[in-house]
């Protein structure tokens, strides 16, 4: 049984300007100890997917169809209180912005200790010790002193480490990391990714890593799902995505990365823009931008099929 399985998830936002289908039939699974990268450009439904899994989609957004199972338990059937007990304890989230993701009026030690106390039911002193241990665990130097500092006294990298300690303190089996390194500079990014990979391996956690950065994917993910306009277009082990991409969108993304063999040439880009999520008809969503488009692409939406073992793609050609 997979740690997390998402089947046919649909989340839409009913706005006065029309219904936005932000996530439109997304299915994937994460095994224990696996890191799945969810890659896509801005506005393609990455973050809404993660919020849907946590059932924290802000109104007017709502989940209209699909199943989300954590260790076989259906999360969409749970009432609010049962869902609340799942959050934090069994699945946790790390956000993009370490500057604003910590409560500015409490020390980081206080915040981690509170998370420990809420889920482990230990005393104040024990929770504090556990918080210091967690900070040490995420390689914060001088954790005992740092625990007494406020978020504004820490650098971006340290703050993101504190965020990770905070998320992992209750011992969740699934970690959803929503662009955890986007706001950091490159050297710190590498350190945080190393840390995430190490913690994930030590704890055997499943990780859903949301990013738009294919470099990050190559570094930490086992498998990758490429999402476009609310749908997964290709899902494969990380090596196959880079060596043998099948979907034209994936190929376009990879071609837009700088590469030594194309040194001196301008970076290529994918022409056009993603479709308006309020007006999606039949047919392949990528068809208007696809260099290989055929008439049949515009008629039927291609299904995600397994073309090679473990390599799924939503393009019949």
């Amino acid at each position: 049984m997979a740690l997390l399985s998402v089947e046919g998830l649909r989340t839409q936002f009913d706005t006065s300007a029309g219904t936005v289908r932000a996530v439109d039939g997304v299915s994937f699974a994460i095994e224990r100890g696996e890191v799945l990268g969810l890659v896509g450009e801005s506005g393609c439904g990455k973050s809404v997917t993660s919020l849907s899994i946590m059932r924290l989609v802000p109104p007017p957004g709502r989940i209209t169809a699909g199943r989300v199972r954590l260790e076989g338990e259906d999360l969409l059937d749970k009432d609010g209180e049962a869902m609340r007990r799942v959050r934090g304890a069994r699945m946790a989230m790390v956000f993009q912005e370490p500057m604003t993701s910590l409560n500015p009026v409490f020390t980081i030690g206080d915040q981690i200790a509170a998370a420990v106390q809420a889920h482990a039911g230990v005393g104040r002193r024990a929770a504090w010790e556990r918080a210091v241990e967690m900070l040490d665990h995420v390689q914060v130097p001088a954790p005992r002193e740092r625990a007494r500092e406020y978020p504004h006294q820490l650098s971006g990298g340290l703050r993101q480490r504190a965020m990770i300690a905070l998320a992992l303190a209750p011992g969740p089996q699934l970690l959803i990391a929503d662009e955890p390194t986007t706001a950091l500079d490159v050297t710190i990014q590498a350190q945080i990714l190393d840390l995430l990979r190490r913690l994930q391996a030590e704890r055997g956690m499943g990780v859903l890593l949301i990013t738009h950065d294919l470099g990050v994917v190559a570094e930490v993910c086992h498998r990758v799902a490429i999402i476009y306009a609310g749908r997964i277009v290709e899902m494969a082990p990380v090596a196959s995505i880079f060596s043998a991409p099948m979907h034209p969108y994936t190929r376009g993304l990879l071609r837009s990365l700088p590469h030594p063999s194309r040194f001196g040439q301008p970076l290529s880009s994918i022409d056009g823009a993603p479709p308006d999520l309020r007006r999606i008809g039949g047919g392949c969503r990528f068809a208007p931008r696809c260099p290989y488009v055929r008439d049949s692409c515009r008629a039927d939406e291609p299904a995600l099929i397994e073309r090679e073992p473990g390599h799924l793609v939503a393009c019949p050609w």
Partner: protein
Amino acid sequence: MSVVAEAVLPLSAPRRRRVSFRAVFGLSALLLIGGSAVFAPQLAPWDPGKQMLLKRLRAPMWQERGLREHPLGTDHLGRDILSRILYGGRISLGVGLTAVTLSALIGVSLGLVAGFFGGRADALIMRIVDVFLAIPYILLAMGVVFALGPSLLNVILVMGATRWVQFARIVRADVLSLREREFVAGARARGNRSLRLLLRHVLPNALTPIIVVATLELAFMIIYESALSFLGLGVQPPTPTWGWMLADGRNYVATAWWLATFPGLAIMLTVLAVNLLGDWLRDTLDPRLKV
């Protein structure tokens, strides 16, 4: 080289807590006023209600017609001004503090609920706020006191129940922006209950404006109480209150300035001390402003 070292050192050196003038002055003035109100029976040289018609309208002791036994003079009924100010502080401070606490409790709770949950709760609470803002608070207070009769408790209740809108509006506005902050979303994603989100993540971050409003309101309440007393709706004479003394002394301001001046100074000093202390508290409680 030395320039660089000097520029860097203050950051790494352990932080020293500088004694702030505002804190020292505000706190000591407030302790002095509060202490003299608490210990008024021990400190006051005279019974504040004792009338001595032969010593009417005596000037303070350093003036020509002053008497040693009445340091701040006497009023038109020959009552000792100093004793009346000491006793009056008990009413003014006590009523002010309890009324501010009451109105903060009502206003902050309603503001938190309105801002955090939004929707119907917000619409309902804010319409009530509009109603309270539309009716002049003095008029509202008059109506209520007329109906219930003037007493210390009723005055406090009326003051708290008419001024809570100040807290509700400020808190709601702050909560509206706070609830969208990522650390609140993060706390929710860690499975915190709404009540805990409100009390631990939203309320502490909204404390700064609450403290500022509370100090301004404490000053306002002292004057509000005086106004009600002046209209005959507050604490009833012969109980001495600063507001009443000020209002009463108005009639003699041309001939006996000390009647209105000393209670006025007492009000001013109290309000000033409270404001300085509130200002200092705000800076200290906000860790982002710590140097």
